[in-house]
């Protein structure tokens, strides 16, 4: 809970140089590196509606413009609309004071309308007739610019097609020069267009060029309608005018008056899986079922990297020493050796630009749907900018493995060491000393950088080709937020 409600007091340095709390970091078990949302690939796994939990494949989602066909959002406050049922009585108004069951009309029919529980907007407010079926059947408004929209769509599709064709051509030439692979077209002397012709595929070039040629670009015009005469004198009734966000929520119509608001088809939600850019392994993979919040793969740093929490600290003063109490936790199922270090003592990140196999690069270049430039992994060293340093004890600390049953014993073992406060199953509390730079300006945020060396036992079954060792020594750097430098 503390991670959700409190600011991030302890930030870890990701391999890309970003500073993030441990809860928003991933840990790639194959590269043995910390990764974050910034330096990994996000992939859309599945589309679903968050309200009715309907699942649909991406092609269908694209066809439906990423909107659910049965759920609606409130056009006024964007909350999900609920379907409400009423008994449509024929003329005869019910006597409220009577409470008499006999007044009930025989000819009642269940009618449905949409209503927002947040702002009490109803589909009746804008004159949408009640429906006799509970779901679907709501009138759809046609886009006034539909034909122009389709024109644009065709035009850009044609351009995309053309660019794809050109790129394919380029790739073909590149590999032809290399001479390692002989493509079908090289062998037979056919051009791509001829091959397409023979195969009966639509001649891409002529089709797309026709669409491009017949396209008329839009013209800017200086002629606009005159403002109404009473524009400066008429009182503005803000209740009748839509807000900017309400207009932009339906870009096709952009209603300026609240009486033109129309239920918005609910936007679909997605489930994402995350992939390491360096080794292409999945870091997280959610379960397919939209109702499930579990993961099939969940390589979070929280489960693999020792967690550091600040218990308390003394006020940081320039040029003085202050005490700092930290708690270390070993989240893994194996014993962990931890040593505190200074960030500058870390071994430099070795620049290993792996010579990628030609097969792999070919495979990637042919995968034209994806822009491969975004797959490049980023490695950078963070600017820590800390004014305080933590005096790291020389000793190596041993943290026991996580044991869920040990949660229930509460006898903390007192350690005799001068910097270990207590020890309890996989947790350890330390008393450390923070030395602050004399030049630190009072009022500036006080931060202390600290590096950890920890042993990690890899549980990934080793690949048959490359025998992996199971024990690793890993490093991580973290930045502790110690309030502000006092004057």
């Amino acid at each position, binding site marked *: 809970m503390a991670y959700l409600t409190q600011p991030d007091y302890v930030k870890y340095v990701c391999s890309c140089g970003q500073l993030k709390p441990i809860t928003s970091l991933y840990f790639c078990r194959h590269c043995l590196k910390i990764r974050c949302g910034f330096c990994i690939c996000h992939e859309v796994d599945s589309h679903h509606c968050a309200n009715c939990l309907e699942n649909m494949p991406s092609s269908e989602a694209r066809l439906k413009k990423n909107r659910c066909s049965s759920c609606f959002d409130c056009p006024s406050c964007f909350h999900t609309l609920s379907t409400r049922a009423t008994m449509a009585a024929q003329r005869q108004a019910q006597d409220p004071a009577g409470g008499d069951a006999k007044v009930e009309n025989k000819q009642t029919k269940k009618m449905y309308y949409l209503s927002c529980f947040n*702002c009490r907007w109803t589909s009746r*407010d804008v004159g949408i007739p009640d429906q006799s079926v509970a779901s679907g059947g709501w009138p759809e408004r046609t886009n006034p610019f539909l034909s122009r929209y389709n024109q644009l769509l065709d035009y850009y599709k044609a351009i995309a097609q053309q660019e794809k064709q050109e790129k394919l051509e380029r790739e073909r030439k590149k590999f032809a020069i290399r001479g390692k692979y002989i493509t079908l077209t090289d062998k037979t002397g056919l051009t791509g267009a001829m091959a397409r012709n023979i195969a009966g595929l639509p001649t891409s070039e002529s089709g797309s060029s026709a669409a491009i040629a017949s396209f008329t670009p839009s013209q800017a015009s200086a002629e606009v309608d005159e403002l109404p005469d009473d524009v400066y004198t008429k009182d503005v009734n803000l209740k009748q005018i839509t807000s900017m966000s309400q207009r932009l929520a339906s870009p096709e119509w952009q209603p300026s008056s609240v009486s033109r608001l129309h239920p918005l088809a609910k936007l679909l939600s997605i489930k994402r899986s995350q992939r390491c850019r360096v080794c292409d392994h999945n870091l997280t993979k959610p379960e397919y079922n939209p109702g499930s919040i579990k993961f099939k793969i969940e390589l979070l740093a929280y489960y693999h990297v020792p967690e550091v929490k600040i218990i308390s600290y003394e006020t940081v003063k320039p040029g003085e020493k202050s005490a700092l109490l930290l708690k270390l936790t070993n989240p893994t199922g194996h014993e962990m050796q931890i040593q505190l270090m200074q960030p500058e003592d870390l071994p430099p990140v070795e620049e290993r630009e792996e010579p990628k196999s030609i097969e792999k690069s070919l495979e990637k270049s042919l995968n034209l749907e994806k822009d491969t430039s975004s797959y490049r992994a980023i490695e950078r060293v963070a600017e820590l900018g800390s004014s305080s340093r933590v005096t790291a004890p020389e000793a190596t600390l041993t943290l026991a493995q996580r044991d869920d049953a040990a949660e229930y014993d509460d006898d903390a073992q007192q350690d005799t060491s001068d910097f270990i406060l207590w020890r309890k199953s996989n947790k350890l509390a330390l008393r450390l000393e923070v030395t602050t730079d004399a030049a630190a300006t009072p009022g500036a945020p006080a931060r202390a950088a600290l590096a950890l060396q920890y042993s990690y036992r890899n549980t990934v079954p080793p690949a048959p080709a490359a025998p992996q060792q199971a024990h690793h020594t890993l490093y991580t750097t973290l930045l502790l937020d110690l309030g502000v430098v006092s004057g």
Partner: protein
Amino acid sequence: MSHNIKILPGATVCEDCTLEGDITIGGGTVIHPRVTIIAEGGPIIIAEYCIIEEYSTIIHKKSDNQEVPPKPLFIGAHNVFEVGCRLESPCGHIGESNVFECRSFVGVDVKVGSGCVIGASCNLTAPQTLADNTVIWGSEHHIREALEKQPSQLLQLDFLSKVMPNYHRLRKPNVHKRPPSARQSQESSPRP
């Protein structure tokens, strides 16, 4: 403060609530337990078919330029006061079919028309008049105008008036037909 609680027949008023001062509760109104209604600045008249839920507070505040005799606070029919809402009003009139959502606050000098909704946790403190069918919602106090009044809670009232007697001690109606001058408060004996 004199206690003069008039409960009209058909009203469901739980015993476990604080009623102080000159209060009239109309027929069909349901008052949940732990409700506080204090008529210190003048009488409070609650019309028919209101729902006043738990922990809501209605105070007719005493003001400095008090009229003599004090003007009553009249709360129209079909108003819903949801859990934990607070209404502090010295100025006369609350319309009908309003909804005061959970933990909303309506301060002094706010005139409420009819069919208004004061959203959950909305605070109205500045002097203002809410036109009929005004809906206020959200932390930014968005305002919109509803086309029609909020639907009445007759089904809910019906249910509550049937269920409440099974689980709560109730104050019995003490006025028959037209409210006469008879003062017969149930538990809290009137002080002379």
